[in-house]
């Protein structure tokens, strides 16, 4: 419409009285047609921007001019500073990673027979709303490996190399002969051959006990050997039952490793049988018995993706999952317009595929890549929903971005003045990117 209005100003070849344009439209008619769009733009875009600017100079209760106070808060408030820092991370990493991945996908899918199907799959996340994607990734990043895919994979890989133990959380009960020792437990006193030893522990969930456990029995004394029992000294429903002696329903710790230690050196070791009994040779006489730490290693719990340290990269990952497809489709379209002859010529001149990609494809695609990066940058600056939904309350502060801080300040902390200042600041951030985009568009039109 703007061009129509501009054309209206140009003298038409046969303009009677100079009031009609080329197409014969009167200026008033043109204005009439423009009016609805102008009114809508004015009411929905220009007025809110203007009012936000005005509001950003007013106090939080709405009245009174406070000068630049709100802007001062903007640069001194800790929360906003974190948000700013995170926004920088976002703007630097999210568009570049998404574009890079999109480029790789676009170039590679060109060579695959099922390229279109692949593109479809990569593009699919774009069809999902940010909210739904947020919910999906909240689950993906769940700490519990039974729920979160990310941790399930991570824990799976980890456990292939390091097994967790059978007795996590086992610990000495009341008046125990055992004391903690570097993650394991060791007897207070030395043991004597011929005197059975009791090594009671508590706290292993019944469903976590290893296979092959049987009712615990007190070890019989054997001359010249150190015998003993290690078992769960806990009777369900009754607490410990008889302290320090196996009760009828208590079970042995099958497979628990026991070491006899003298002066810090392991002199003998044994493994408990199903009923918890074990036998050590005479060498163990006078030693202290140790249940080494690897009996009690906690099951590996994975990475806390949504903890303070990893939350922003994790959310950027979710964003890239959504937008790499967008980048890929645009770049693929650009790629289709790259003259094949150039690539062929390069290949004929002996360039390797990598060189063709680096020296020919990418430079030719540069305008498209710029469009994608800039579009994503604008998009990233206003990211809100993903952060709001994925970050749990405890790390929302660490995942904070400007748009989220705007919402929090405006709608839950009752500081609309500061919120307006943030929105004006965001606008200022977007403007240079927009200008770049518009100038590039103009250049394109001139060409």
């Amino acid at each position, binding site marked *: 419409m703007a061009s129509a209005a501009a054309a209206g100003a140009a003298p038409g070849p046969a303009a009677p009285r100079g009031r009609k344009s080329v197409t014969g439209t009167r200026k008033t008619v043109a204005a009439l047609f423009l009016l609805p769009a102008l009114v809508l733009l004015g009411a929905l875009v220009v007025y809110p921007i203007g009012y936000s600017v005005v509001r950003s100079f007013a106090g939080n209760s709405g009245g009174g001019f406070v000068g630049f106070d709100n802007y001062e808060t903007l640069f001194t408030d800790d929360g906003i500073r974190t948000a700013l820092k995170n926004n920088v991370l976002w703007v630097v990493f999210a568009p570049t990673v998404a574009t890079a991945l999109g480029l790789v996908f676009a170039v590679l899918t060109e060579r695959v027979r099922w390229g279109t199907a692949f593109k479809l799959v990569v593009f699919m996340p774009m069809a999902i709303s940010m909210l739904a994607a947020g919910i999906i990734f909240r689950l993906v990043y769940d700490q519990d490996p039974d729920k979160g895919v990310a941790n399930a994979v991570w824990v799976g890989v980890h456990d292939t190399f390091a097994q967790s133990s059978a007795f996590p959380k086992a610990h000495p009960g009341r008046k125990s002969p055992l004391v903690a020792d570097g993650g394991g437990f060791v007897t207070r006193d030395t043991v004597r051959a011929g005197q059975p030893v009791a090594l009671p522990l508590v706290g292993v969930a019944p469903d976590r006990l290893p296979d092959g456990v049987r009712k615990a029995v007190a070890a019989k004394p054997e001359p010249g050997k150190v015998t003993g029992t290690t078992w769960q000294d806990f009777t369900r429903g009754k607490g410990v039952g008889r302290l320090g002696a196996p009760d009828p329903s208590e079970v042995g710790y099958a497979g628990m490793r026991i070491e006899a230690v003298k002066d810090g050196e392991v002199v003998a070791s044994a493994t408990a049988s199903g009923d918890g009994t074990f036998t050590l040779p005479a060498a163990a006489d006078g030693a202290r018995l140790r249940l080494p730490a690897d009996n009690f290693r906690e099951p590996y719990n994975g990475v806390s993706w949504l903890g303070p340290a990893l939350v922003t990269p994790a959310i950027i990952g979710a964003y890239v999952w959504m937008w790499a497809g967008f980048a890929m489709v645009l770049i693929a379209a650009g790629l289709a317009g790259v003259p094949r002859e150039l690539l062929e010529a390069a290949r004929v001149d002996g360039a390797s595929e990598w060189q063709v990609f680096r020296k020919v494809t990418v430079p030719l695609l540069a305008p498209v890549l710029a469009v994608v990066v800039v579009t994503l940058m604008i998009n990233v600056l206003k990211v809100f929903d993903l952060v709001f939904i994925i970050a749990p*309350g*405890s790390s929302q502060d660490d995942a904070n971005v400007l748009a989220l801080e705007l919402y929090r300040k405006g709608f839950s902390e*009752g*500081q609309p003045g500061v919120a307006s200042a943030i929105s004006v600041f965001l606008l200022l951030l977007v403007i240079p990117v927009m200008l770049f985009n518009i100038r590039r568009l103009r250049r394109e039109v001139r060409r």
Partner: protein
Amino acid sequence: MHSKISTCRPHRAVTAVAALLAGALALSACSSGDDDKEGTGQKPGATTGSTVSLPKLDGAKLEVAAVWTGGEQANFKKVLAEFEKRTGASVTFVPAQDPIINFLGSKIAGGQPPDVALLPQPGAIKQAVQKGWAKPLGAEAVKELAKNYSQGWQDIGKVDGKQYGAYYKAANKSLIWYNTQVFENAGAKEPKTWQELLTASQAVYDSGVTPFSVAGADGWPLTDWFENIYLSQAGPQKYDELAQHKIKWTDPSVKQALTTLAQLWGKKDYLAGGQKGALQTEFPQSVTQTFTGGDQPKSGMVYEGDFVQVNIGETKSKVGTDAKVFPFPAVGDSAPVVSGGDAAVILKDSKAAQALVTFLASPDAATIQARLGGYLSPNKNVPLTAYPNAVQQKIAKALIEAGDDFRFDMSDQAPQAFGGTPGKGEWKDLQDFLRNPGDVAGAQAKLERDAAAAYGNGG
């Protein structure tokens, strides 16, 4: 924030999301309240005698705004229907959004305020009065309040000595819910004191179950933990002073309370998932994981108010048999009662609006909703038998017996920037404390810094 004191209100978007994740909407959860009604086989209003005289209001039209949704809203509408029946007025329920004070602001700016609104915090009432929105209650309503409410409940509805709010709904936030099977297996008993709670926790731990679920991903359950300990340990006087920020968070009493709290929070094995896991546990999950998993749940106990029932309703456990409750044990001389509530406030003064608030302050109205379940009334003349099950009766009894010794949720009294914003102020500081329970002094310093900033600029 005030969803703490409601049964069926999603706390905020993320909580709603979490509810979705759990595969259960608040809506379906709330509908369990209706089952209770069918269980008792009583029709609302059927056995309610009239204890309050209401004027004839034929042709009068009223609007009532509250943030209740789902079953809670349906139950409240039944109370309104009774009012319509008795007076001939017609009442429309206006669903409001959180925070209701902002919702009302836009309604008032638009020239169409509802006649009556249910406000969830003393701070909100004060705000409404300061802005000139709230109208004082008339003699009838005040008389009804005096008849049915303890002085404490009347006083928190007053601003500058004038009665503005009538507390219709209350929440008891001094409850610890436990998995009966776990307690039985561990041979643990319901504790009465903090020391006994630690003993019971150890017993549960020894039996192979983690004692506690702490919803650390949400900040507000953490503030409620602290408030209970502080109220019991430091006493109501100090509690009020701290709530108004007349004493600093660096006060020795705060140090003592945090140190006490660290006796539980400091033990990694006492918290489901350890401190890190707790910090990623949302409130609904903290409840459901305590009551699912047979006799090997992820934890044996979970602390929060009466609204925990709603989340238990999402599991297969039954309140009263599989899930039981005991009052928060006494840390100091007496057990704490921390509460919340929604107060009816008149925004457009009329005979009908006054009559409605009078009705809501009467035991008649409260009894109707009490029967329907999922509701607690601060009205001392509501018979305990009106509550549909033993657990509800126990909770109501604890609340009423506290008389004037109850205290309103401290973080609800604080400016929103300090006591009611996710990832900020008290919420964030207590989350940091949960992450690192050894650093009591550091937590105090951070709390004091944030409190000073929030109270300083008046929120």
